[in-house]
């Protein structure tokens, strides 16, 4: 609203908003803070917000104990691989739905989304069986395919919404200019949809990174990503708050950092392309 806001009102809303924001962020903040404490200080009563001995030893211990880098690498490969594969399959499909709509387009789109509603647990055993059959258990390739499949409907849907914002006349112009289908998608559609595609990629990396059903149930050692790494800390053994915090921080840090650097695309992506 183009109207002068009184400074007093702005101060009040600022204070309230910051309070709420910090409250929501607090568990993450507290975890990161605790990861730099010694185990004794981590459970001090009253809790220590400052004045503790800053230490990095928890990170060293966690790395030594569970080989963090290997899990991290698995997470990167699985999240990245499934997203890239998904994009490659979804771009042509979304092009078709957005620019050559038919009576069935909407039904197909809704059907795709509905496959996302199939409870994973209902098909857990058959999938593990197939994984055993094809020697995919505990492999990154197998997980890449599964995570690609569970996120494919979301990728198609998001790309479809972004593509629909692109006027069809521009693609027709490309066709009149002598572009074949491949050139049309490669040189005209994709560059125009870069922001939307970037948002889609970001959101899907996050979804794949954080996926915790298939990654827990289909991996053991070799292909286990960070979700499995952190799950191994679920049974407490002695004083472990600081180490748990360090492990947690290491598991979420890559995504948090990525999120901060690409905030704009991410915010767009987080709305699943559904709201402008």
């Amino acid at each position, binding site marked *: *609203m183009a109207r002068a806001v009184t400074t007093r009102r702005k101060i009040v809303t600022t204070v309230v908003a910051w309070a709420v924001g*910090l409250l*929501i962020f607090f568990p993450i903040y507290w975890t990161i803070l605790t990861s730099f404490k010694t185990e004794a200080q981590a459970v001090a009563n009253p809790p220590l917000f400052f004045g503790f001995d800053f230490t990095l030893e928890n990170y060293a211990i966690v790395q030594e104990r569970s080989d963090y880098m290997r899990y991290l690498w698995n997470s990167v490969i699985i999240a990245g691989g499934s997203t890239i594969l998904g994009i490659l399959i979804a771009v042509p499909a979304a092009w078709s739905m957005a620019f050559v709509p038919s009576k069935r387009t909407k039904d197909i789109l*809704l059907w795709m989304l509905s496959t996302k509603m199939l409870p994973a647990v209902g098909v857990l055993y058959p999938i593990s069986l197939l994984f055993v059959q094809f020697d995919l258990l505990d492999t990154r390739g197998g997980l890449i395919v599964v995570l690609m499949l569970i996120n494919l409907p979301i990728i198609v849907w998001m790309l479809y919404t972004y593509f629909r914002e692109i006027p069809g006349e521009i693609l027709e112009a490309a066709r009149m200019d002598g572009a074949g289908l491949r050139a049309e998608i490669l040189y005209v559609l994709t560059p125009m949809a870069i922001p939307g595609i970037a948002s889609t990629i970001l959101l899907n990396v996050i979804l794949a990174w*954080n996926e915790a059903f298939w990654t827990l149930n289909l991996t053991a050692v070799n292909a286990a990503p960070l979700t499995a790494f952190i799950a191994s800390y679920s049974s407490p053994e002695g004083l472990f708050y600081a180490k748990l*915090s360090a492990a947690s921080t290491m598991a979420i840090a890559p995504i948090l950092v990525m999120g901060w650097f690409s905030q704009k695309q991410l915010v767009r992506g987080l709305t699943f392309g559904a709201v402008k």
Partner: protein
Amino acid sequence: MATQHSRSAARLMMAPAVILLLGWMLVPLLMTLYFSFKQYLPMRGDSFERGLEWVGFENYVRFIGSSSFWPSVQATLLIVGGVLVITVILGILLAILLDQPIWGQGIVRILVIAPFFVMPTVSALVWKNMMMDPVNGMLSYVWRFFGATPVSWLSDASVESIILIVSWQWLPFATLILLTAIQSLDSEQLEAAEMDGAPVLSRFFYIVLPHLGRAITIVILIQTIFLLSIFAEIFVTTGGSFGTRTLTYLIFQRVVDSQNIGLGSAGGVYAIILANIVAIFLMRIVGKNLDR
């Protein structure tokens, strides 16, 4: 804008996605259906090679007759419903708050969306140990600070705790969608209503809320898809005890813990049916809203 040529190209380009998803849906589904009519306990020596015994609907009857079935349905609905209500209501309030002019809006927005980046296993562990632990958790300090007795959250208020954890994870998503929707509201509409003498509350109920209708449907749809299958949050915190055994978790236990594939598969079919009932409702609403 379609010619025969582009239509056939479109069909060809849609094929990989459609075929893959069709396979992903049908193959495991048919296998689950098959197992659900068999007695299959690998631990007791049942195996494919020796052939599985056909038991008709026995698994179905047993699964639904078990004392854990109805509580698990109840837990599922309670958790999904609770999270939806909390995230939608708080999401609207937060969105309105963030829509106000404030200093440091960008930073506050990052703070608010941060929980979405946190993987479910981590957020469950952090909440379980750092926040809700009855001895060392932050909440217990707060309770003690005010002279109250700390609560054993995950055993005494287990369902509420799960709802709290999951809501914390999904509130950013609801807030962002609703915020985007609020920002797209034509301010002239609100000014017109103000000129017509509508007070703040009625402006909210008659203009802002209806405008948010579509966004709210989308929040509900997408969250329901993800919430019906929450797993890690329960796996890590309560392991399904204290009334937090959702249908998903119950089936997981039947298949993985007690290795009763037939029974678990029958449960899987029930879960699929339940998901489809929800899906049909949601798709109706979304289908209408997709047209705009």
